[in-house]
């Protein structure tokens, strides 16, 4: 009986406590008022966005909540959320390749009417970012996102090593030219070979860091920087989805061979499954002379006490024998269809599109795509990497942005990793198999795929 009383007493206390907590919760919620959840990747620019968002809260009274997920699970996590019509995100900064699926599946709110009403013109943004982040179908006038974070692949190098007289003279003696940031991939390979295994300040260093990650998108985002410049394309511009001879042309195969050679000759041991973070670690620890990575990380690297400041330099992705391009990164910001706070979310986009906000975004470490910011006369002097960023945004190419992009990406990850890292088959075979994989995907999607 005493036990029963005790149980009843405890149950009553629990109920009361729960009621009290519930009351407190709802009171807090009432005090907080409106709230928006913004979903993005967990990386340096996300911290800048949190800082920037404080101004929005100050002006609108709307609290900002953030859901940041590491890059390796970013696509899995948020595509799952969008697929299941979840209500976690009001706003999402989704990857450029998602735009086709997001538009076709109606995950994102179409922004044309909103842009027209608020007089937000896409002509005010860098063209490559509008095509890459906002439009679906590409080159149409259907807008699903506002360009939020412009990005591309660029390179960092150890400026302090490059400028040392002993290293300079050794390089000149060996190659008969001055040691300078490479303009072509052949020059890059030469420099990487020169540094590979060299001892600098008593430490063995390596030539270059390139993307090799297998699981998500890493090796594809790396290898395309070489492939584009050797002549690789996704399809025939005149015959959409005709990939034979474009994806697997002899020039494209040479590009793939080159990437493998670079990986074999000039990277640090163990870099068999490495992406952004491993590159940053390798560069920050003084292990490599040159690093391939996204511009988004360059503000942080420039501030690094060990390798930043005067010690770091930046260069644009080098040209190849058949062109000069670089891989587009970056994202647009969209309103999620299932959001219950659509008006507030649109208010955020309206606020974010303002030139003053975009200027601050760039100053805080984000990359604005607004022409008013990047075309300003003082922009190239505003950061050490600004001129290279500007040049890169003029030569970007992006991966497929089809609704089936995930399948296309994973097929490329497999075929390229099999050849480059696992030494399976030849470059030509890898690309031939890729054409076969992609043809199958497009056929399943109901596309007409011409073989020639």
């Amino acid at each position, binding site marked *: 009986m005493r036990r029963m009383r005790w149980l009843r007493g405890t149950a009553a206390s629990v109920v009361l406590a729960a009621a009290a907590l519930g009351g407190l919760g709802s009171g807090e919620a009432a005090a907080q008022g409106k709230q928006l959840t913004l979903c993005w990747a967990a990386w340096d620019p996300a911290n800048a966005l949190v800082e920037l968002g404080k101004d929005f809260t100050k002006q609108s009274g709307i609290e900002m909540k953030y859901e940041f997920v590491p890059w390796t699970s970013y696509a899995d996590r948020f595509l799952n959320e969008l697929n299941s019509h979840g209500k976690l995100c009001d706003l999402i900064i989704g990857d450029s390749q998602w735009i086709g699926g997001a538009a076709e599946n*109606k995950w994102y709110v179409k922004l044309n009417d909103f842009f027209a009403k608020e007089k937000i013109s896409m002509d005010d943004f860098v063209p490559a970012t509008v095509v890459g982040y906002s439009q679906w179908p590409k080159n149409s006038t259907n807008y699903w996102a506002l360009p939020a974070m412009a990005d591309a692949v660029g390179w960092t190098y150890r400026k302090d090593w490059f400028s040392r007289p002993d290293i300079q003279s050794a390089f000149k003696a060996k190659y008969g030219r001055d040691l300078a940031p490479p303009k072509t991939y052949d020059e890059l390979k030469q420099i990487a070979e020169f540094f590979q295994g060299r001892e600098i300040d008593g430490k063995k260093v390596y030539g270059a860091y390139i993307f090799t990650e297998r*699981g998500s998108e890493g090796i594809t985002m790396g290898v395309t920087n070489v492939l584009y410049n050797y002549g690789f394309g996704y399809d025939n511009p005149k015959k959409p989805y005709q990939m034979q001879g474009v994806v697997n042309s002899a020039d494209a195969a040479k590009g793939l061979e080159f990437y493998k050679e670079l990986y074999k000759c000039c990277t640090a041991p*163990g870099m*068999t499954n490495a992406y952004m973070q491993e590159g940053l670690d390798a560069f920050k620890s003084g292990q490599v002379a040159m690093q391939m990575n996204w511009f988004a990380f360059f503000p942080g690297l420039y501030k690094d006490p060990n390798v930043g400041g005067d010690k770091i330099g930046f260069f644009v992705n080098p040209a190849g024998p058949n062109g000069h391009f670089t891989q587009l990164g970056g994202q647009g910001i969209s309103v999620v269809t299932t959001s219950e706070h659509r008006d507030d979310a649109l208010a955020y986009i309206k606020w974010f599109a303002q030139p003053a906000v975009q200027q601050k975004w760039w100053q805080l470490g984000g990359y604005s795509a607004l022409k008013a910011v990047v075309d300003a006369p003082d922009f190239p002097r505003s950061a050490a990497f600004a001129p290279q960023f500007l040049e890169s945004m003029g030569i970007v190419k992006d991966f497929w942005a089809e609704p089936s992009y995930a*399948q296309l990406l994973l097929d490329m990850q497999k075929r390229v*990793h*099999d050849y480059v*890292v*696992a030494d399976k088959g030849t470059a030509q075979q890898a690309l031939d198999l890729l054409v076969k994989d992609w043809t199958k995907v497009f056929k399943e999607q109901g596309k007409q795929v011409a073989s020639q």
Partner: protein
Amino acid sequence: MTTISQPDDATVAGMGEPARSQATRRVRGLSDRAIAWLFIAPTIALLLAINIFPLVWMIRLSFTSLNLSMSYLPLRFVGLDNFTDILGDEDVWFRLQTTAQFVIWSVTFQVIIGFGLALLINRQFRGHSFWTTIILLPMMLSPAVVGNFWTLLLQPQIGPFNSLISLFTGVPPSAFSMTGQVSLAPWTIVLVDTWMWAPYVMLICLAGLRSIPDYIYEAAEVDRASTWRQFWSITLPMTVPFLMLAVLFRAIENFKMFDMVNLLTSGGPGSTTELVSITLKRAAFEKWRTGYSSALAIILFVAVFGAANIYVKALNKVKQR
């Protein structure tokens, strides 16, 4: 409890009319069977909701073309196309081969090492409890922790594993990569899995060893049987059912292995260590090929279920001997 059992004249005999009718009402209200159902109903409902319904739904989906990344496309009934696609796909067979090799080698090493450890731990010695705890530590860790921890250990430049190998072989530590070389990566996942799960096999074997009555060994000693003879004629035969159980548990678990391998190698280099569970995850949650991945999941389920059933029958035969 008697008040809610079936009507029984003896129990209600002698009661007044109101009491009798009340008892009858309660009896009519809830029979034993009804109470039994009442108690198990929540569990059944839960099982139906989280096990049976998804299974039935998955079977349904396996006959469709559903791709969640293109859910705007009309859902088509494709019959057995997904199944024939999978069974005719060379890559899937390679992944099954990789998985089979991983299961065979890892379970073999785990049984040998686990049984050896059990034989050692079965003896009473100083620090016995301490060493048992140390040996059991790996299996208490989460596979995610093990994956990350071994990734660091195996890092060619800073990881102690390569330095250790270098110490014995003279090969420079950065000259090889355990997770990045095609020839080494499959053995690396076997090594890490064995490190983690051999203690589990040891525990099962230890239970087997402890279940052998001492008098059998005493009788063998009276017959002057050597230690070796005792091992072959008593210890091994009497622990075989336990060993078989350990093999069953570990084989099923390793067939489903995902997390640790995904963290260590992501299935690489290339597709060298891509187990079928990784293929399934990629098809279902990265490529979003829901129909196809449902079919693959069913094929794997049937394969594991069938193999396990055959094995359990064999195990029962051994037990009966």
